[in-house]
């Protein structure tokens, strides 16, 4: 097997008062901290994502999905554990190494968009390229192209505050696509979108995937979306994965009562993921 694109081993992230966290340096001390009032947003998590795979994470709100995705980029410092992304040991990187890694290997879409309110839509989309030092003309061309793909032609010179929620979300998606990174971390990227655009964006993602074989970690609440996009999926609860497997497996054999309830909350229009994807790609 090739080296996985993402490998996470024994990842922990505790939140809580400084006072308690100060003493947390080894997993042995964690149970005590938890008793004292800390929250384990991510709890001893280990998994791998293969190159070119779309790995979907679902789970209750507050189960730690955003925290996990942030930890992969060290936007929040993991309390414990090891993260490798694209063959790089992220947890061991120093400052410049981390910057280089973030610029070149990964792109992220934020649940709350994370747009720069003082920059125009175009500048927002070109932002990743600017940081990387791409010349203005080139990054402008690239940004215009991606903006057209997400259906925001004509809005380039507006500020994010003049856009509706769904439009802002699409700016965030365009920003990630513009960087051409191999690995995409997507935190509920499509949840504010209307169904037409949502389907479009899903198709676009599958097309991209067929062409470029990116590796994607995708957080969603929509089971249809998970089934449609995911090669494998994980169901998360209180910081741990309750079950990991292909969507079909999970739908057919829920590991426990919780997963069963979770996947049946949204009944699904047949399980024809494979055929659907083929249709789109062809």
């Amino acid at each position, binding site marked *: 097997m090739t080296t996985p694109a993402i490998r996470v081993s024994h990842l922990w992230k505790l939140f809580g008062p400084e006072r308690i966290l100060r003493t947390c340096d080894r997993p042995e001390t964690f149970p005590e901290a938890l008793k004292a009032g800390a929250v384990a947003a991510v709890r001893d998590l280990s998994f791998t994502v293969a190159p070119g795979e779309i790995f979907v994470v679902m789970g209750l709100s507050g189960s730690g999905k955003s925290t996990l995705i*942030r930890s992969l*980029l060290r*936007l929040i410092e993991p309390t414990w554990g090891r993260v490798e992304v694209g063959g790089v040991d992220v947890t061991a990187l120093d*400052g*410049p190494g981390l*910057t*280089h*890694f*973030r*610029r*070149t290997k990964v*792109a*992220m879409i*934020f649940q*709350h968009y*994370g*747009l*720069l*309110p*003082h*920059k*125009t839509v175009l500048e927002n989309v070109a*932002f*990743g390229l*600017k*940081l*990387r030092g791409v010349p203005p003309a080139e990054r402008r061309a690239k940004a215009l192209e991606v903006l057209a793909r997400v259906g925001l032609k004509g809005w380039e010179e507006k*500020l*994010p*505050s003049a856009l509706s929620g769904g439009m802002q979300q699409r700016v965030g998606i365009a*920003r990630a696509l513009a*960087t051409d990174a191999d690995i995409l971390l997507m935190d509920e990227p499509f949840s504010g979108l209307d169904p037409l655009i949502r389907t479009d964006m899903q198709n676009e993602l599958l097309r991209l995937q067929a062409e470029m074989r990116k590796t994607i970690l995708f957080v969603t609440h929509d089971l249809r979306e998970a089934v449609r996009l995911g090669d494998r999926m994980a169901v998360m609860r209180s910081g741990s994965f309750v079950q990991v497997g292909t969507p079909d497996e999970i739908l057919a054999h829920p590991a426990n009562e919780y997963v069963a309830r979770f996947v049946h909350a949204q009944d699904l229009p047949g399980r024809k993921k494979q055929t659907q994807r083929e249709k789109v790609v062809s």
Partner: protein
Amino acid sequence: MPEFHVAGWIDAFVDWLLLSYGALFDGISAGILALLLRIQAGLEWLPWWAAVAITILAAYSLTRRPGLSLILGSLLVMVVALGLWPLAVETLAVVIASVVLALLLGIPVGVLMAESRWANAALQPVLDAMQTMPSFVYLIPAMMLFGLGKVPAVLATLIYSTPPVIRLTNLGIRQVSPEVQEAALAYGATRWQLLKEVRLPLAMPSILAGVNQTTMMALSMVVIASMIGARGVGEEVLLAINRIDVGRGFEAGLAIVALAIVMDRLTQAFARRWETPGVP
């Protein structure tokens, strides 16, 4: 309670500086003075109507607000009409030099204080001291070291007027939303890029308030500057005061206020040019 004094040490220290490094300070003084005299010569070379025209044009090209530009121009015309233009030029030389130095020093220090908790804790009382230590206390030794005139005036103005821009830069940067900063970091912004692309532009309203306060405080030092031989409009104020000439003092004060407003609006417009958030 038994008393305890530090005065003796201070005196000894100043004497020692004076005797051992007198020549060095003369050198520094000559350097600053040369810069100042150049600014002043430039201003003096300009006829007043040219200065008015330049102000109006600069204001218009920076703000695109014709009303404001004309008001700024007419404030300068008022200074001329009061017969205070030649004095105003001397004052301006000192104030411009001080404000430019204050901003060049203050904004980076403010950034430093926002970045480092340690610097923040250490510099806070220093800023307090800079603002409240009565100027004359340090001006007396400064005058002994640098001589009388414009050089210690610039020094005193700098010391008194730099803290606001430092403090407000610090505050502004601390208020920038962590979400937006996180997004920039996720795309690989270095510390410097984060600062330049996100933190400074979003802190701009607060920084501008600091620039405004620094300008105001620099101009509030005009009279003190004149008290140590820097000449300018402040001297007119002193003269009027010593002669109990309320009207004349008021006119001189008006001229200072006019200079303050013109300088402030121009600096603000200029700083705003750099980049400001689109959100109101």
